[in-house]
């Protein structure tokens, strides 16, 4: 199974007269995990939303799998991608099952196809089956995130986008989910774009790491590249600001 690639060429986005992003050119490699990282306001969430046409660029172009992402094509792109935000972005009026199957029902899948897909997904995400008929507000934060992941995976998309997916979780749940998510990414081999401001998390997930500041790419490469060969003092400072435990070597 393989994913599809995104490509941005000369993209700019202006908010209220101030440039929020770009001009920026970036290739997101297929079937690998790309992590966008940077301080608050660096434009990483804006970039993510440009990828599936939730917002339109003011200049430049966004391509998905060789096709331009435009208002006309955006819906087709979204059907081939899954999008997960902090706390899952679940609809409170629907049960977990209702959330996961919303799109499939809209597309007219028959019930047996829906049921077997749900079965695959709860095994993949280790979601407890008895939680399927609960509303989001009656699920734990970690469970909500699993439902969000299942919903994103329901149509078996070519790419998955995550915006601070684990940001609202307490540290232990977060650590567990990081392990499980990376396993899922490796198993599925899809194109993954993940936004975080946590360098440890970024390093853990990233095949390819993109560091943004003020709407511009400061440096990109493997996590090791950024640690060993920081491109400028900002990268050095950013890397050093992420403290780990001070244990004796």
């Amino acid at each position, binding site marked *: 199974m393989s994913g599809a690639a995104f490509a941005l060429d000369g993209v700019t986005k202006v908010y209220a007269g101030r440039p929020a992003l770009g001009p920026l050119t970036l290739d997101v490699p297929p079937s690998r995990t790309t992590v966008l990282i940077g301080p608050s306001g660096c434009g990483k969430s804006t970039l993510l939303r440009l990828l599936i046409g939730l917002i339109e660029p003011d200049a430049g172009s966004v391509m998905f799998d060789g096709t331009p992402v435009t208002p006309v094509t955006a819906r087709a792109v979204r059907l081939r991608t899954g999008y997960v935000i902090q706390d899952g972005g679940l609809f409170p*009026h629907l049960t977990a099952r209702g959330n996961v199957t919303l799109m499939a029902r809209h597309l007219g899948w028959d019930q047996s196809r829906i049921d077997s897909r749900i079965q695959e997904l709860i095994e993949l995400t280790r979601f407890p089956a008895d939680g399927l008929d609960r509303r989001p507000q009656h699920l734990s934060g970690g469970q909500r995130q699993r439902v969000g992941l299942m919903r994103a995976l329901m149509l078996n998309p070519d790419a998955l986008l995550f915006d601070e997916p684990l940001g609202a979780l307490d540290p232990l749940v977060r650590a567990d989910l990081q392990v499980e998510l990376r396993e899922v990414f490796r198993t599925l081999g899809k194109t993954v774009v993940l936004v975080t401001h946590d360098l440890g998390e970024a390093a853990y997930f990233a095949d390819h790491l993109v560091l943004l500041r003020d709407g511009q790419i400061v440096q990109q490469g493997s996590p090791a590249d950024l640690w060993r060969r920081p491109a400028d003092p900002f990268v050095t400072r950013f890397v050093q600001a992420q403290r780990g435990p001070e244990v004796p070597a």
Partner: protein
Amino acid sequence: MTRYWILFLGLLAGCSGPVNKPVVIGDKKFTESIILAEMGVQLARSSGVKARREDLGGTPAVWLALTQGDIDAYVEYTGTITREIFPTEPPDLAAALAAHGVRMSKPLGFRNNYALGMRKDVAAAKSITKISDLARPDLADLRCGFIPEFVDRADGWPGLKKRYALPQGNVQTMVHTLAYRAVAERAIDVTEVYTTDGEIAQYDLLVLEDDGHFFPAYEAVWLYRADLEERHPAVVEQLRRLEGHIAEVEMRRMNSRAQGDQKEDERKIASEFLSYALGVTPPTAAESTDDTLAGRVLQTTYEHLQLVVPSLFAATLVAVPLGVVAARRPTLGKVVLATTGVLQTIPSLALLLFMIPVMMALIGKGIGAPPAIAALFLYSLLPIVRNTHTGLTGIPASLRESAVALGLPPWAALWRVELPLAAPTILAGIRTAAVINVGTATLGGFMWAGGSGRPILRGIDKFDLPLMLEGAIPAALLALAIETLFGLVERVVTRRG
């Protein structure tokens, strides 16, 4: 949502009434007019047809109802026909009426002339015995209270003032019944009276002589539709049996029986008169639904729902989409919210009355239920539009974006995500509209739309508290019932997914 719509459709279906059309005798909603209409109904029934009374309002409304076929006959006064119905006095009255498909009977025997009345002690203290006395400069500050129609009509106060050069400037408008009480309580000094009014004897008033002969003769006559003569010749024949049979003193006596302390039922007064004057005994058991309190309340409640349910249903169908548009297009939304907001600030009575000419122009029927429903419809818009707008714009941006990001097309995102999320707020808006609607619909009594407003207004006219409560209490209970019903629906909708 579905359950809720079914409920509405059910109520709507329940509101289509019977089609069988009885003979309808109209009245102007004052005692004498009602007694005479009641006589007409009973005479018509005695000829074997179904008949009922329709309480309408002032002359224009009754004339309109007659010419457009809502009623078949009513008692009018010759002075009103020649001065008010026709802009100029027609040379051939019968021909002028025939041009409108209307015929006139011979006079019924009594005159109900306009006159002015005062307390006898007040008049004596100021040495007033006739209208020309009122022209004295020292009487310029007399307080006058007249019905609005009298103040507006050329053959009313303006003409009278001119003819006698009257100096009085303190003129208030009030309901006829209230004016009598106001005179009795010395709150005003002069009011207009009709010479057959029962109150003249009841309050022992002095009728000022029209020594300048300003007021014309107001002889009571039947006006009836020409086609009634073809459809029910026997009914016309029965109605005309009253010709020349009601003396002025007789009429005044009947009026005072209905209005004095005993407040006798107009129906009973009419049937007693018919029995001893004409030997008519109408079939008593006929159409008895009107006669018990429970039957009357059921009937008015049913009529009330016929106003409330269609207007609310139509308002929901229009206001929810308007609310959606307002939420989607903020600029247009401001216009929509401002417009519906302005509608809400129009006093409800004014809006109801404004609907009369509008509906006349639109559907050729200016009185009755349609204009009331139209006004209630406009009134129901704002709460629903506003709550739909609030409900939709209150959805967190992240949820709206999640729906789009899933790949749902805009209408599906609206239908599957946004409207369900906003449903409790929208329902609360519909509930508010329903409760306002039940209350405002009582004002439909002013435009002869039926419902609980009819007994309330009739009760005010007659100063009859039990009759007012007969309309007010069911209306209040209906509002509570609707409030409770919507509370249950809201709970179901919130619990379901």
